[in-house]
């Protein structure tokens, strides 16, 4: 009996030792899938954007056959709920539990700061979807795909004073860092004076009190962080018959709200990093593929996530499939590629890419779109 007990213990001990063996053997990194972590806003103030980003990322991965440089791709999606603390928790999970090779997003600047501060010391590459404040670049693994706030709009400010001839300007938008940065960027290109800055608090639903607060400038520049805000503001602006021309930096307020506005949207000049009307082969193919898969035209939201994914895949191709963080970051810094928004490369991890001046036009009954009237390149602002 005693003998059986000892034999049994020996068998168990051997099995346990054998179980440890695979963990000790070095697993070749090449056989493992490339893991992409995507931070998406399914709920929260930008609810709806998450779905759009997901659609675009999955389309890009479909195009690539869900593999790159001989390795399979795995996509892990997490909801930031539009909150910095939740975004940070989800990022921690993506890095520590899922061990992703890159984090895409998030959409909101405040969440991006929390996420960037976590990823940079751990060396994990972080590719943003849209523009953000240049301050985010102090986190050494952040790449601002479509440029930074100030640099996006210097050309637009220049257009307002040199092409449209405006001499005085007022600013409105949510009381938020993106608004301050963008307005400073506009002033770097605009030659004239500022009449008023009329920032409204987040959650404002009735903008009427702010129309008079903006004073009487030649032009009112505006920016919105969510489509419902843009929709309400423009609709109310038109209802009140305000005569001051309104221009919009359309980073997060996109073309799909135009049908809801109808004729009220006509004649508004704006600036956007992407519109489906960009006339290039690569974009035409993208718009066609997007429409075939999802039934509607893509906007700047979807395009930005598509480009961010493309940029990462390009970097992995450049390293020959090596996803060690330092190699990826080096590859990203040296990228030069054609994208649906135009040719893109990074300078100091800030995207240098064309951006477009647009005017809202009516293509047919009930069909509204942006007409491209000019374009310029995003700049790296000199501080």
């Amino acid at each position, binding site marked *: 009996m005693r003998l059986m007990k000892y034999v049994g213990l020996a068998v168990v001990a051997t099995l346990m030792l054998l179980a440890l063996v695979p963990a000790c053997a070095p697993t070749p990194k090449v056989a493992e899938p490339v893991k992409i972590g995507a931070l998406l806003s399914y*709920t929260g*103030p930008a*609810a*709806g*954007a998450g*779905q*759009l980003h997901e659609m675009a990322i999955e389309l890009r991965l479909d195009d690539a056959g869900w593999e790159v440089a001989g390795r399979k791709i795995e996509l892990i999606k997490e909801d930031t709920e539009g909150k910095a603390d939740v975004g940070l928790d989800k990022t921690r999970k993506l890095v520590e539990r899922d061990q992703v090779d890159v984090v895409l997003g998030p959409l909101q600047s405040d969440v991006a700061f929390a996420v960037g501060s976590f990823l940079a010391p751990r060396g994990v590459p972080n590719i943003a979807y849209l523009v953000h404040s240049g301050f985010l670049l102090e986190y050494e693994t952040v790449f601002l795909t479509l440029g930074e706030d100030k640099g996006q709009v210097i050309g637009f400010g220049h257009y307002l004073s040199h092409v449209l001839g405006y001499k005085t300007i007022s600013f409105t938008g949510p*009381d938020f860092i993106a608004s301050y940065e963008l307005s400073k960027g506009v002033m770097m290109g605009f030659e004239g004076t500022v009449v008023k800055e*009329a*920032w*409204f*608090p*987040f*959650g*404002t*639903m*009735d903008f*009427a*009190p*702010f129309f*008079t*607060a903006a004073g009487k400038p030649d032009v009112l520049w505006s920016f919105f962080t*969510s*489509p*419902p805000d843009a*929709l*309400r503001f423009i*609709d*109310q602006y038109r*209802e*009140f*018959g305000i005569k001051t021309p309104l221009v919009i930096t359309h980073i997060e307020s996109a073309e*799909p*709200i135009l049908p*809801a*506005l109808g004729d009220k949207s006509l004649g508004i000049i704006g600036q956007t990093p992407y519109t489906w009307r960009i006339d290039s082969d690569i974009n035409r193919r993208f718009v066609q593929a997007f429409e075939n898969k999802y039934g509607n035209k893509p906007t700047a939201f979807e395009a930005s996530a598509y480009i961010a994914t493309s940029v990462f895949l390009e970097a992995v191709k450049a390293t020959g499939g090596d996803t060690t963080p330092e190699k990826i970051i080096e590859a990203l810094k040296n990228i030069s590629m054609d994208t649906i928004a135009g040719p893109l490369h990074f300078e100091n991890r800030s995207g240098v890419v064309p951006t477009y001046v647009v005017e809202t036009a009516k293509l047919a009954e009930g069909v509204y779109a942006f007409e491209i009237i000019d374009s310029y390149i995003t700049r790296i602002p000199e501080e």
Partner: protein
Amino acid sequence: MDAWIVNLLNGLSIGLILFLIGAGLSLILGVMGILNLAHGAFYMVGAYVGVTVAGEGANFWLAALAGAMAAGLVGLITERLFFRHLYKQLNEQVLLTFGLIYIITNLTLWIWGPWPKMGTPPPILSGSIGIGDISFPVYRLAVIVIGLVIAICLWWFQEKTRVGAIIRAGMDDKEMTTGLGVNYGLISGAVFFSGIFIAGFAGFIGAPILGAFLGAGIDILLLALIVVVVGGMGSVQGALVGGITIGLIDTFGKAIYPGMGMFTIYLVMIIILLFRPSGLLGRKVT
């Protein structure tokens, strides 16, 4: 001077939309003791359904009825399925109704997609009138009138009808009322439906100014709660006073001190609660 008049009218129009939003919540809370956090979600259902029906060419008032009925029906279903099992269980009600916000918002996202919609005023109420060198939209004036008409109807019902008297009696002393042979269960159900119906109606009436948007579940709820807390629970007058107070203070606050905009209504709420904990016209609820 013109700016003052415009701000006053703006404040009143927003205030009356807030009254419509808060009235339903206040009645349900006062009569049934149910804290329905999904109130904003029902507002949203009314807005989306109404705007869609109007978009198909229906008459404005028909679309309003459609929106309100849709909200009311969803409310009735949730009442029959869930609320009747949670009488007096406040924690469970809070959890349930909060969960309902997410469910209803996701269903709305599923059916209507992520982009917001704008309502349109009926032709006779569109256009604007000049006040000095500012044009003021006619529809906002119409909202003030519509809100006041509904307030008067609800007040009349509450104070001058037998059913209203029964409801008020039940709010003060439920045991006694049922002891007198009143089928309070039926009345409660009817009040619940009406409260949600009004919320859905408010959603559609507010749509030409505020739009139909997915965030309404939380954003509108916050405003409704402030209106009920400031005005006092359980009465039409309370919701009216609360709504107008908040509407005026919010509008003037933003016009005069835009930087303080996020803070003004909460500051007012705190001050009012310090002096009148049950709200301006609140009844003490057991």
